[in-house]
């Protein structure tokens, strides 16, 4: 006799899978936040709104342009990234150097406006989006049922995170990004066009949120408030991993998803708060974050 009855093992693995899927979204979103904070020192409260725009981008381009999921996956992140370019060039740039609080307030305000408009236009009840035909169905394993689309989310976000990590840690462009995080003024003195890199970085970080939004459209309902719900958790994750640490954001995102899933299984009452509990512990015992880089 095993300690856990079979049905519970099934439940455990299901919650683990749900945790990993949530963790994938956390990883994508906190990666974008960490990249943006690292170079721009901007606390981008609009990240959740861009995630929501990604999901709506997929829904709208299907409704009005007839573009299917695959086209959306390709084009919507680019479109969301361009919206980010516009925001950075027109508003955020004006307050650069004014301190982190200003950028927080500005991006928070933008997020509220965007969410408000979408709530007015589409209501808050949520719109359905079909799982693409190729990814429907699932695999029945001995311990659990594995929906294909969830596997796809996991693989694609892990792949994107790994690619982003390699780009930042192993390429010349990435070395500009890392160095710009430390001393943008000296980078300018070397003749590097830092303002351009700042724009590209912001757009890229925001495009990651757009991608997460497209991925999320078939699993969570497409709703104007989907971004604000997830954003607070994602900020806790960035704090746990350490603001600005790329690898830290990815690993913490996945890890916290799993911890949340496990908590749902063992002590469901705490599942909504466990991440914040971890954040409090980290702030007490390692305030710079788990993955803070040694100076």
């Amino acid at each position: 006799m095993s300690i856990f009855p079979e049905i519970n093992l099934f439940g455990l693995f299901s919650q683990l899978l749900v945790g990993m899927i949530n963790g994938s979204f956390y990883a994508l979103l906190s990666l974008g936040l960490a990249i943006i904070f690292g170079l721009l020192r901007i606390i981008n409260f609009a990240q959740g709104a861009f995630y929501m725009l990604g999901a709506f981008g997929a829904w709208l381009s299907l409704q009005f342009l007839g573009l299917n999921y695959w086209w959306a996956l390709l084009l919507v992140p680019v479109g969301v990234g361009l919206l980010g370019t516009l925001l950075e060039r027109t508003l955020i740039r004006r307050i650069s150097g004014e301190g982190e609080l200003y950028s927080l307030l500005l991006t928070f305000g933008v997020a509220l406006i965007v969410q408000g408009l979408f709530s007015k236009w589409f209501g808050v009840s949520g719109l359905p989006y079909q799982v693409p035909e190729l990814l429907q169905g699932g695999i029945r394993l001995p311990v659990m049922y594995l929906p294909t689309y969830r596997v796809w989310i996991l693989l694609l976000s892990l792949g994107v995170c790994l690619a982003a990590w390699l780009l930042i840690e192993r390429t010349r462009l990435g070395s500009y990004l890392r160095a710009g995080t430390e001393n943008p003024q000296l980078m300018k003195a070397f003749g590097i066009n830092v303002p351009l890199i700042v724009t590209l970085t912001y757009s890229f970080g925001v495009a990651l949120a757009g991608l997460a939004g497209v991925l999320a459209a078939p699993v969570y309902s497409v709703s104007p408030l989907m971004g604000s719900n997830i954003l607070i958790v994602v900020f806790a994750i960035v704090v746990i991993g350490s603001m600005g640490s790329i690898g830290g954001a990815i690993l913490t995102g996945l890890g916290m998803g799993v911890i949340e899933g496990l908590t749902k299984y063992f002590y469901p009452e705490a599942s909504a708060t466990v991440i914040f509990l971890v954040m409090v512990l980290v702030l007490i015992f390692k305030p710079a974050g788990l993955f803070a880089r040694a100076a």
Partner: protein
Amino acid sequence: MNAATSGAVTTAKLHIQNLHAYYGESHILHGLSLIVRQGELVTLLGRNGAGRTTALRAIMNMVGRRIGTILINGVETLSMPAHRIAHLGVGYCPEERGIFASLTVEENLLLPPAIQPGGMSVDEIYTMFPNLAERRRSQGTRLSGGEQQMLALARILRTGADILLLDEITEGLAPVIVRRLAEVLEQLKRRGLTILLVEQNFRFAAPLADRHYLLEHGRIVEEVFAHELDTKSSMLNAYLGV
């Protein structure tokens, strides 16, 4: 031998006229004027706080407001964004060295983009600074102070910059490393580079330099040619407080 005394027609690589510079409300440079010609090594001497670092940072557009004229190769740069100035051929080695902790030694070396042809190759640089070759995979800030200084200097030699602004490169270094830096500067002079050197260590600078400017309270108070050092030494000592 030096360009300024030989009377030959030489071009000014760097020409500053009546420069005022501010950090916020603090007025630091008060009408600074100086000229550095092709192939010269010129020092900026002065007590701590005289404004030597500010002068170099003002050239790089790294201070607040600036008024006056800064010509680099004859081009007015006062209204240029900071990232364009290096492309006129300027390499800047900051007082705090500015080695990036998030980059390896080699990434630090490769960070500044090449701005014009004629820079040293990575192999030449590693021949000149063998320690850097040995430690190319280390984190930049794990190097010793002397090695970090070598790296800060090496990384602007790669870019093809032919006007070097060097801020206190011998500060806090052991005598053997200071001698090595003197050899390196001799080599750079032979290559025809133009160098503006901020130095505290007068014994290091004196044998290398063609001319010296004495800076006090943000303006030039004396210009001393290399051949005048003996006759003007008591005046220099008075200014530098040595």
